[in-house]
């Protein structure tokens, strides 16, 4: 054991290490003074690195579940919504071959509007209805690093629309995807081919390009009649990164198109397919200003269009710019920032719906600040507020307070109070059914923001190295939820209020080095009602259709090296209105790593029943059938 600077006082040597670290931002690697510090000194050096966010999330005072890349691979998922089924705090219901209703904490709906979804920092919900067209959101799942799923309001940091949750899909840095990868999947219900190539980019950076082709077979309804929902989609994209996680530059973009089969309805203009396409380009610049502060600036453009002759034909262009400055000042960790977003859309009428006016430009600006205060060594208080301005209701304030109490190194109790808002979308104000008068339903010129006041309390622990647990109780108090009126000329109003509450919990047990078990559940109750004075004929059931409970069990076993056997069981209780019977789905997967770089796997989905509906009204809704799939994954 030798220490070349054994004569120097410990503090001085630690200071040398720190100074060296502070100056390292501009210096290339391979300086090595740290290697001469002792183990104890190394243990006392603080680092500031954004890459730690994943680890920090496990200590965050919020209901956060992280879907890992490994979990996605072993689920056999071939689409983003299927991967999201891995999060126990989400409700995922398949509507047809490629469309899904996805939510956290209830209000599930094909046009669900209380969830914020981001792919690499780009918001993918559609501003004219504040929901997500899931058939238009694809990623090469093999290049996803993780998906963070936050149930509950994330409004202070993320903004309006993050009322019931945030889904954050994060792909790997291009530096982590060097080389070629080919993934193929083919089976009874779908075929998918994806390829990626990554290499060095000029200027000591990395890049990757990828392409995806997807074919999904159509489903049938409960009478056995084939629906025309089969889907063909293609997507290409790239990502390039320079520098590291604390200081660097990222440029990425995607372009996609897809369409259903020809749908035939006895109206002029049919048969016609739903066609969707879009492209986006994002640049992000992160800079470590000094040891204590980072600055992030991000901008993107996003174009999307959808031609649905039955519903409507939107075309949307979005420009989004934001910045974020994180700094530390004695016991405070402060993040503040702002953003500007502009959406220009043109929604041409379909057979059923039109928007008036058809074209509109909307913009949003926001400013936020959050301060994490270390009250005591084991007690952190996080206070934050976001002010967001929209063209309909002016400035909305979104405050939150969170308290994290570390009972022990591996045990956290947390509580949070937040106010979240869903600001009006074009749909709430401008929609018309039918597109021309006389109208049966019309957007409400007086529609204002829906408001949730949310209380949460949670406990998270790692009682043993092989066991982790989390449980959260939530109560959302709702005001001014969207309501209707009796037709004709029914205007959209804000006349539903009440509360929703429930539990979310999950646990992971690494039983042996080759066997992992995980389980999760949610319960949900809603007490919502129409306010006095409202003539809403439908009531709260128009807002969502949610199960009282759901649970999942997963087992990932490596029976011997190179072989993988996965079982997933999911139980979803009945939906009340319209009634969808409860179902239990069993998925199995067997994978064989033929060589370190080549994996073959067979996946069976919905093996227990011949098929079940997950959403919608009988008998026209899709039955989601049993399916078998062969996967190949080859890294070159």
């Amino acid at each position, binding site marked *: 054991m030798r220490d070349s600077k054994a004569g120097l006082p410990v503090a001085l040597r630690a200071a040398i290490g720190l100074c060296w670290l502070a100056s390292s931002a501009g210096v290339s690697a391979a300086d090595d003074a740290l290697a001469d510090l002792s183990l104890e000194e190394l243990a006392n050096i603080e680092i500031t690195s954004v890459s730690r966010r994943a680890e920090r999330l496990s200590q965050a005072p919020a209901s956060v579940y992280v879907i890992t890349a490994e979990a996605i691979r072993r689920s056999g998922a071939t689409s983003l919504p299927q991967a999201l089924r891995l999060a126990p705090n989400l409700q995922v219901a398949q509507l047809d071959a490629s469309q899904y209703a996805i939510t956290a904490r209830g209000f599930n709906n094909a046009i669900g509007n209380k969830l914020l979804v981001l792919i690499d920092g780009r918001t993918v919900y559609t501003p004219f209805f504040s929901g997500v067209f899931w058939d238009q959101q694809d990623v090469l799942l093999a290049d996803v690093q993780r998906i963070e799923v936050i149930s509950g309001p994330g409004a202070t940091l993320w903004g309006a629309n993050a009322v019931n949750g945030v889904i954050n899909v994060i792909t790997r840095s291009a530096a982590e995807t060097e080389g070629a990868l080919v993934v193929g999947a083919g089976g009874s219900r779908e075929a998918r081919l994806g390829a990626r190539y990554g290499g060095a980019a000029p200027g000591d950076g990395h890049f990757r390009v990828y392409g995806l082709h997807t074919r999904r077979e159509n489903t049938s309804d409960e009478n056995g009649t084939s629906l025309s929902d089969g889907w063909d989609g293609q997507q290409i994209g790239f990502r390039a990164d*320079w520098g590291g996680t604390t200081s660097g530059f990222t440029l990425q973009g995607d372009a996609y*198109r897809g369409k259903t089969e020809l749908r035939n309805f006895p109206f002029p203009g049919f048969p016609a397919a739903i066609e969707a396409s879009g492209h986006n380009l994002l640049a992000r610049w992160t800079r470590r200003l000094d040891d204590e502060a980072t600055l992030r600036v991000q901008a993107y453009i996003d174009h999307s269009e959808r031609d649905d002759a039955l519903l409507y034909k939107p075309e949307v262009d979005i420009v989004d710019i934001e910045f974020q400055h994180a700094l530390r000042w004695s016991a405070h960790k402060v993040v503040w920032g702002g953003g500007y977003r502009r959406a220009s859309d043109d929604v041409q009428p379909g057979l059923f719906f039109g928007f008036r006016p058809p074209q509109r430009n909307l913009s949003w600006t926001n400013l936020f600040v959050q301060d994490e205060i270390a009250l005591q060594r084991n007690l952190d208080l996080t206070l934050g507020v976001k002010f967001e301005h929209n063209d309909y209701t002016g400035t909305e304030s979104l405050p939150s307070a969170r308290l994290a109490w570390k009972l022990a190194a591996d045990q956290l109790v947390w509580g949070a109070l937040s106010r979240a808002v869903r600001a009006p979308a074009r749909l709430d104000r401008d929609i018309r059914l039918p597109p021309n008068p006389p109208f049966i339903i019309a957007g409400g010129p007086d529609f204002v923001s829906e408001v949730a006041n949310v209380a949460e309390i949670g406990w998270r622990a790692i009682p043993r190295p092989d066991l982790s647990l989390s449980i959260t109780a939530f109560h959302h108090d709702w005001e001014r939820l969207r309501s209707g009126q009796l037709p004709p000329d029914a205007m959209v109003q804000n006349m539903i209020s009440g509360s929703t509450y429930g539990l979310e919990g999950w646990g992971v047990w690494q039983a042996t080095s080759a066997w992992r078990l995980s389980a999760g559940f949610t319960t949900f109750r809603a007490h919502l009602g129409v306010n006095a004075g409202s003539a809403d004929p439908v009531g709260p059931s128009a807002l969502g259709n949610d199960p009282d409970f759901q649970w999942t069990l997963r087992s990932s076993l490596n029976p011997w090296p190179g072989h993988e056997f996965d079982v997933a069981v999911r139980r979803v209780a009945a939906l009340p209105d319209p009634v969808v019977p409860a179902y239990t789905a069993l998925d199995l997967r067997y994978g064989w790593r033929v060589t370190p770089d080549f994996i073959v796997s067979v996946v069976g989905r919905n093996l227990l029943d011949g098929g079940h509906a997950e959403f919608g009204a009988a008998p026209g809704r899709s039955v989601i059938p049993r399916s078998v799939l062969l996967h190949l994954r080859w890294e070159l």
Partner: protein
Amino acid sequence: MSALRVWRAGVFAFALCMLAASLAGRAFAQSEANPAEYQIKAAYVFKFLNYVDWPPQSAADAPLQIGVIGARAMADELTGIVAKRTVNGRPVTVRRLRPGDATAELNLLFVARSESARLADIVAATKDQGTLVVTESAEAPALGSAINFVVEDDKVRFDVAPRAFEKANLKVSARLLTVARKVLPGSS
């Protein structure tokens, strides 16, 4: 709506980006390339070599061999450290490996977080080789890693699983155990 037009716009945007990126890349190439986290971890890994009783080699000055899977920054840092240093008179070599490469000769194997998906297989491959496996992911100790890095309160700490040392026929020094954040009971 013209899908072709959109497609062409996409390809054009792509080409434009690559151009802009290669220009921007020059400006950013000078900026910091590896987070401080790996600088500290690399220093630790080098120190760890001092606190393990390595089985005697035929030649007393045979080099100690470190392998790194994933995390090029880690390998770069370590290469810089070992260039001017020895451990008890023995030189140290550092190699970057791909999953599946032979690990038989290695004294210490670092597996980066990005490769944690393959950890079970990698650990299985080092069985009975006398290789110390060092990792940085939460699930690693349960999969048989001997030393696992954790970041706590913005500091890099590590947990030690003596059981994994035993299985690799290595002896861990008491000093490593005292500095460790936690000494893990270890799993089968």
